[in-house]
């Protein structure tokens, strides 16, 4: 499949990245981190990662989408560094311990509440995404990575298995754990629940 000339030229010519994608990526980062110099740093880190990986860009998505996907991982990495004390890796061990979500009979130990989210409301979207990124940063890295690829980039699980070098069953388990942790985190942090 021939890809549109301009798009291909866009990624294949890194000297044009700043002019073509710089502002968009910067705004995207700024929406999450709220600090101009950090946003600029994240754009820079994204460009560096993109330089190293640009052979992998096959025009399956637009250049902007491809770069944005890299940026999302960088944003989550940044938040993770900010919130996690270097010595603690509590969440990793938590998943091995007994399941916090269900009792011995497999019934909910804390019942899921009713979320009141209006998907059409931009402000609520923004708030929701802020909390979601924060919750993503609290996940073990591998789980966050799998989740971002699946739900944010919309990749198939086959593709994710290839990229992360895992089996299909593994990917389902990882995504399940990621979703369970995220919903718990979102419920605790933001979404007032009616029981």
């Amino acid at each position, binding site marked *: 499949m021939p890809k549109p000339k301009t798009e291909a030229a866009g990624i294949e010519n890194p000297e044009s990245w700043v002019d073509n994608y710089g502002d968009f990526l910067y705004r995207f980062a700024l929406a999450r981190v709220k600090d101009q110099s950090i946003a600029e740093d994240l754009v820079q880190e994204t460009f*560096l990662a993109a330089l190293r990986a640009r052979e992998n860009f096959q025009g399956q998505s637009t250049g902007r989408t491809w770069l944005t996907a890299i940026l999302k991982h960088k944003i989550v990495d940044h938040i993770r560094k900010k919130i996690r004390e270097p010595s603690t890796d509590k969440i990793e061990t938590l998943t091995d311990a007994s399941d916090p979500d269900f009792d011995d009979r*497999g*019934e909910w130990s804390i019942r899921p509440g009713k979320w009141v989210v209006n998907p059409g409301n931009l402000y609520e979207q923004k708030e929701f995404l802020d909390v*979601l990124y924060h919750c993503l940063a609290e996940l073990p890295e591998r789980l966050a990575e799998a989740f971002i690829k699946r739900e944010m980039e*919309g990749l198939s699980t086959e593709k994710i298995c290839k990229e992360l070098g895992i089996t299909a069953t593994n990917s389902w388990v990882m995504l*399940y754990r990621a979703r369970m942790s995220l*919903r718990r985190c979102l419920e605790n942090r933001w979404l007032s629940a009616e029981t």
Partner: protein
Amino acid sequence: MHWMYNCKEVSEMVSESMDRALPFYQRVLMRLHLLMCKYCARYREQLETIRAASRYEQLHGKELDDSQALSNDGKERLKEFLKNHLTDTH
């Protein structure tokens, strides 16, 4: 195989059904459980909300503030940075 799944099992199936097509009997029993159990039904709505929000951002990026842009200095810095790293990454 048993025909009554508990909430934990259903929670796994709901998640898995978002990544692949479940076998027919599992799908039927999952739906049956969801009809009877409001907490699992809420859980499924929650996962769908999370998915919708994640994808929404991908598709539109509408929440972005157009008045914000990289400063000229910032652009120069980034261009310089790219130029310096072009050689050592290729």
